[in-house]
Every structure is written in structure tokens, then in C-alpha cells.
């Protein structure tokens, strides 16, 4: 079907405008982070950081506890995501491939758990952690983050598990595998892209979590990066260069991970590996 010239131009033009709109805030963050202060507070915006500087990044990195909090963030996020993936995969497999009493009740439990408004439950979580004498520790944080992402991970993995043909598993079992071997050798490799895609959500959630760590870990060296970023902003006030540099440092790991995993995930799905 031939389309008119206008019919070919407008989708591309719209796409370009949209792309610019979506990228701009991200670009402006990096742009501001690299610009010297006089370019940041000029009457007319400086669109390109021609006089690039790392001064703002130096300010950000030398802010107190940056490296400690970065390490805390990394440890808590990775542990929470890996734990929730492992636990969720077992559960998702059972919920998708097996039929048993109480299945729907359990499903509903996770769907409701997915809706838990954690930000309004900080008070009871605080009391529980305080009574366990674990304030300012990374352990409760890890477990609560794990649970924040667990329901979503489990419910999403169900879709990926269901997409692996049962016949593959069955033929492996006919070939003499036990059910567990069939799962580990046949199903699990096919699930890898799904696991990666799902883990993204976990990484983002745990990396971003703010209200809970704000209430639980008040010691300056026990927090995580979101806490640092928000305090940084109030400390440095109108120093937008340093604030944007801090925001960039906070965003870069997730941006990289996202670009990497997103491709993997989509690639895994389109290559037909999952469809067998």
C-alpha cells in the first residue's frame, strides 16, 4: 500500500519531536552537570556544555559518605533482587505449572501484596525493626526491599514460565530427566531473558527506595544513595550544577543496566528461543 508524501512524513516528524521530548530532561541533567556555574545561571540557557568541567562531579563525589552510601545501595539492591528472583521463580513455577488446592487464594495474596502501599507503612515497619534492635542495619532494608519487588517479580515470571512449552519439559522427562533436572537443564536457560527483564524492575525499585530508608537508617553512614541525593539537594541548595552531577551519578548505573538488559530481554523474546 503506497502512502502519500505527507502520510510518510508526519509519523517520522512526530517521532522525532517525541524522541527529543523524552530525551531532553535526561540530556539537561548531564548538560547542567558538565557546565560551569556561570553558564548554568546565565539569562539565556546554554544548550551545549562547550566549556565542560568536572568540578561539579568532584563536589558531588567529595560530599560526605558518598562512597559508603554507594556501596550500601549496591549491596542492598543486588541482594534484594537476587533473593526475590530466586524465591519468585520457585513460586511462579508452582503457580503456573501445577494445579493444587488454594492456588487462586495464593495468587490473590500476591496480587494484593503487589498493591501494598509501603510508603504509608513505614511507621509499623520502624517499630518492628526498632524492637528487633536492627535500626541502621542493611539487613532489614534488604529483606523489605526484597518483598517490595517479590509480588511483581513472581506475577511477571508466571508469564515467562507459561511461555516455555510444556512439551519441552515433558520430552526431557521422557528422556530420563527428573522433574528438577528438566527444569534446570531445559526450562531455566529459556527463562534467562525473562529473569533479566524482570530483574530490571527490582533494580529500579530497590535503587530508588526512599521513605523506608529515611525512617529506618538515620545514621549518616547507614543510608543509601536516594537519601544522599535528597540531602545533598537541601545542603547545596541552589548549586544546581552539583545537584545535577549528583543526580547523574545516581542515574548512570541504572541507565547502563537498563540499556544492557532491555536489549537482552527483547532479543531473547524475538529470537524465538522462548517459543522453542
Amino acid at each position, binding site marked *: 500500500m503506497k502512502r502519500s508524501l505527507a502520510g510518510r512524513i508526519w*509519523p*517520522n516528524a512526530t517521532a522525532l519531536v*517525541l*524522541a527529543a521530548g*523524552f*530525551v531532553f*530532561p*535526561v540530556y*539537561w*541533567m548531564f548538560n*547542567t552537570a558538565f557546565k560551569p556555574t556561570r553558564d548554568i545561571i546565565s539569562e539565556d*540557557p546554554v544548550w551545549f556544555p562547550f566549556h565542560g568541567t568536572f568540578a561539579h562531579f568532584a563536589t558531588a563525589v567529595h560530599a560526605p559518605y558518598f562512597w559508603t552510601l554507594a556501596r550500601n545501595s549496591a549491596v542492598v539492591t543486588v541482594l534484594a533482587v537476587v533473593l526475590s528472583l530466586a524465591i519468585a521463580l*520457585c*513460586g511462579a513455577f*508452582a503457580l503456573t505449572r*501445577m*494445579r*493444587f488446592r488454594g492456588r*487462586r487464594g*495464593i*495468587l*490473590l495474596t*500476591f*496480587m*494484593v*501484596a*503487589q*498493591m*501494598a*502501599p509501603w*510508603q*504509608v*507503612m513505614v*511507621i*509499623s515497619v520502624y*517499630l*518492628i525493626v526498632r524492637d528487633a534492635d536492627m535500626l541502621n542495619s542493611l539487613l532489614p532494608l534488604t*529483606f523489605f526491599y526484597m*518483598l517490595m519487588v*517479590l509480588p511483581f517479580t513472581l506475577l*511477571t515470571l508466571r*508469564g515467562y514460565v*507459561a*511461555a516455555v512449552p510444556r*512439551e519441552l519439559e*515433558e520430552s526431557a522427562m521422557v528422556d530420563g530427566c527428573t522433574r528438577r533436572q528438566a527444569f534446570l537443564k531445559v526450562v531455566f536457560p529459556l527463562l534467562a531473558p525473562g529473569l533479566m527483564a524482570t530483574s530490571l524492575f527490582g533494580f529500579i525499585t530497590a535503587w*530508588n527506595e*526512599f*521513605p523506608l530508608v529515611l*525512617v529506618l537508617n538515620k545514621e549518616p553512614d547507614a543510608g543509601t544513595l*536516594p537519601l544522599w541525593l535528597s540531602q545533598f*539537594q537541601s545542603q547545596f541548595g541552589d548549586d544546581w550544577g552539583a545537584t*545535577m552531577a549528583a*543526580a*547523574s551519578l*545516581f*542515574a548512570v548505573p541504572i541507565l547502563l543496566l*537498563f540499556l544492557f538488559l532491555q536489549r537482552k530481554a*527483547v532479543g531473547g*523474546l524475538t529470537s524465538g528461543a522462548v517459543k522453542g
Partner: protein
Amino acid sequence: MAVQLDGAKAATDRRVRRTGAPGAPPGRHGPRRWRGTPYLLLLPALLATVVFLGWPMVRNLLLSFQNLNMKELIQHLAEWRGIGNYQEILGSEQFWRVTGRTLVFTAVNVVLIMVLGTLIGLLLARLGKKMRLTLSLALVLAWAMPVIAATTVFQWLFDSRYGVVNWVLDRLGWHAMAHYDWVGTQLSTFFVITVLIVWQSLPFVALNLYAATTTIPQELYEAARMDGAGTWQVFARVTFPFLRPFFLATAFLEVIWVFGAFPQIFAINQGGPDRLTETLPIYAFTEGVGNLHFGMGAAISLLTIAVLLAVTAYYLRLTLKQEAQEEQEEAAL
């Protein structure tokens, strides 16, 4: 993340397989299979949920019947006040105003996200390869921006003195906006928050919708075209019905996410000016943690959960019905 796509695709795969080659019925693989396996597999997930979600919930429920302020908190006192907290909240005009505001806020955002996200998703399907990649990359960048970083950036974009937005509006001839204070009024603050949330949420809907459209058999489109259907009709008669599960699931997630939006609203203006942009989660946090009325905060948080459950009840019921149907179908095989 291609999440909903897989749900939809898996559902069709399952349907195809069931009619094509039924294979061995599930749960009857061998005579010696132990019935406890699914429970064992689910045990860690359920245990974690009970300990780290169930317990705080119960604790929250207990707190909501207590008079718990700073003094009681420090001295580990439990002073019961029955349903006093609930009476006070449900009797206050503030709570109902915040609830109404939250519902309107959620509705506006979710509708914007779903409509614009669908349009962008359909646009993606129509683009050439290079342009599609460009737009996808831009979407992924916006999607990947951590919320706290994005919120900070939007504060900078909408800064009254040096913000780009005001500069552009001024240049376009709207000079009143030159040093406009975006967080000065309720409506303008909500505007900034909405732009931020919609900007961050669109990529999820658009990319997933695009991925989902690729699973629609081309024959369906061809048949519709042959019948002389226009663009809108193709969408209404082929795309939408085929992707109904996807739309439902995505709208459900967006409702949960927008309803619970916390850092965006809190960081932009702490629910201000004059607490006029507080939604239920912010209201619960401000009353509980901010004003140190922990019992009240707990009661508000439970009411918040009740409101959210009421809003999402339709979807939850639908999903359970579907699962029940599938179980029956499989049992019939």
C-alpha cells in the same frame, strides 16, 4: 520489560496448545507424585510475605487503634483508643477532600498515560526501522531515569529563575511566565507532577504495547483492511480486542503506581502549597511521621489500602474468574 506481552502471548500459546496437542494433563505426571511439591515451592515466597508484609500490616492495624504519639513511642507505651482514630479521620473534611483529590489525580494521570502510551505504541509500529530505534532509545532513557533523579531534574527544569521551561515560555511570547513560580499554586504544582509522572510512565506502556502488537497475526489486519476498515476501525476491531488483557493489566499497574506515587509529589513540594497537593499516601505520611501522630497515620494508611482495593476490585475479580475458567478447562481435558 515486555511484561504484559508475555502474559498475553502465553495465554494464546496455551490456548493453541490445549486445542492442538493436549499432552499430559498437569498434575498427573506420575502415580507417585507427591502432592506437597507446589506448597514447598511456594513456601519461601509465602513465608517472606507473611513475615515482611503480613506482620507490618497486622502491626499497622493494631497501631490504628492506639493513641501513639512521640511520648508513647519513646516510652514503648500502648494506649488503646478503640475506633477513635477512625472516627476522627472519617469525620474530618480533610480526609474526604484528599481522597477525592487522589481519585481525580489518579484518573487523570492513568487516562493520559494509557491514551498517549497507546498512540506512541501504535506510532512505533508504523515507523521505519531507524526511526523506531531512535524513538525506542529515547523512551528507554526516560523510563530508566531513577525517580529521585528525575524529580530533581524536573525541579531544575521548572525552576522559577533559571529554569528552561520558563525561558521557553517567555521566548514564545508568554512573558508573564518569565519568572513563574510553578510550585506556588495547587494547579501548577499538580501540572508539574503530572508531566513528570506521565513522562516517566509513557515508555512502559508504549514499548510494551508495541511489542504486543507484533504478536497480532497479520492476517487479522489484512482481513480488516479488505473489509475497508479505516485506521480507527482497525484499532477498534482488531488491535484493541486482541490486546484487551494487555490493556487491563497495564491499566491496573498504572493505577497502583500513580495512586501510590510518593517521591514525585513529596520531593517537588512536600504536598504543598498549604497541603493542597497531598494525595492519600502523602497525607498518611505527613500526619503519621511528619506530625508524629503515628496511630492516626496508621489508620489513614489502612483507609488508603481500602480505597485502593475498591478501585482495583474489578480487575482482581476478573483475573480470578479467568484463572478459575482455565483451571476448569484443564480439568476437563
